[in-house]
């Protein structure tokens, strides 16, 4: 009985996919760097991304957390005072009198 998970089309035979892949690889020339130097250069490259010499300009998005501090208000009194004006009717009656 055939195993349903066994898919023979993905199994390369010698001289087909594997050989072609090797042919496409670039040929290395010169002396390869020592493993330590290679690691250092990689770290340097990575560090450039994370620690740029020039500071990044601050965008609106970067200010979001800082802007949370703006809310400094507290409940406060805000009264209204107003003088009552005499009614128009009373005013008329006074004038009539």
């Amino acid at each position, binding site marked *: 009985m055939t195993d349903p998970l066994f898919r023979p089309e993905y199994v390369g035979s010698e001289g087909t996919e594997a050989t072609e892949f090797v042919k496409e690889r670039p040929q290395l020339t010169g002396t390869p760097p020592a493993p330590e130097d290679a690691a250092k250069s990689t770290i340097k490259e990575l560090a450039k991304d994370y620690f740029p010499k020039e500071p990044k300009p601050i965008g609106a998005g970067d200010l979001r957390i800082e802007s*949370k501090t703006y*809310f400094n208000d*507290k409940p406060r009194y805000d*009264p*209204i005072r107003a003088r009552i004006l005499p009614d128009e009717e009373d005013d008329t009656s006074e004038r009539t009198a």
Partner: protein
Amino acid sequence: MIRACDVCMEDVNGRVAQGDIYKDIHFIEDVSQDHGVIEVKRILFPYVVVLTQDCDLQQDFGVRWPNPERMPKDQDKRLLSVLVAPLYNAEHFFAGTHLSELRSDGKPIAMQKIKRSGTKGETIESNDFPRYHFLKFADDVQLVDLVVDFKHYFSVNVEYLKRVRPTNYKCKIAELFRENLCLRFGNFLARIGLPDAVEAPSTT
């Protein structure tokens, strides 16, 4: 413990809804008249959250601003006011200074100072203290950590809120977090006040 509070900025048909956060809302403390001068004592709260049931607010909206095609038969569902609770800056709250600009007997109102990293502070931040509700917003919401004190709820006029909505509406607490807030508020109001412990009378 970080408690995210999801907020959606969408408006719900322009109506006042449960979980809405408004800024600069007046609470009318007293109205008096003396020698022809009327004085309205108002307290301006920087932020408040709406606590009234959303279905009640929806029905009230339908009565006050009805759809011409579906006019209500009566005003049975009309509300008199909307229940809100002030939101205090957590930093002020833990320092006990959140009401320092209000006065009692001529002195600034001093509230209890609570150590944030202490047991009580941590209990409040994890929303395990019945009187308070702690809200921590995501970074994209320009609101600092806020605390609701359920003892300080008050009511405001529905039409007042509707009128200031275009300018004072800040955001809306997402449904799940809103339900959590309102359920905790309901539980706080429904608590049973028990007398202080007294010594049992001696039987001997």
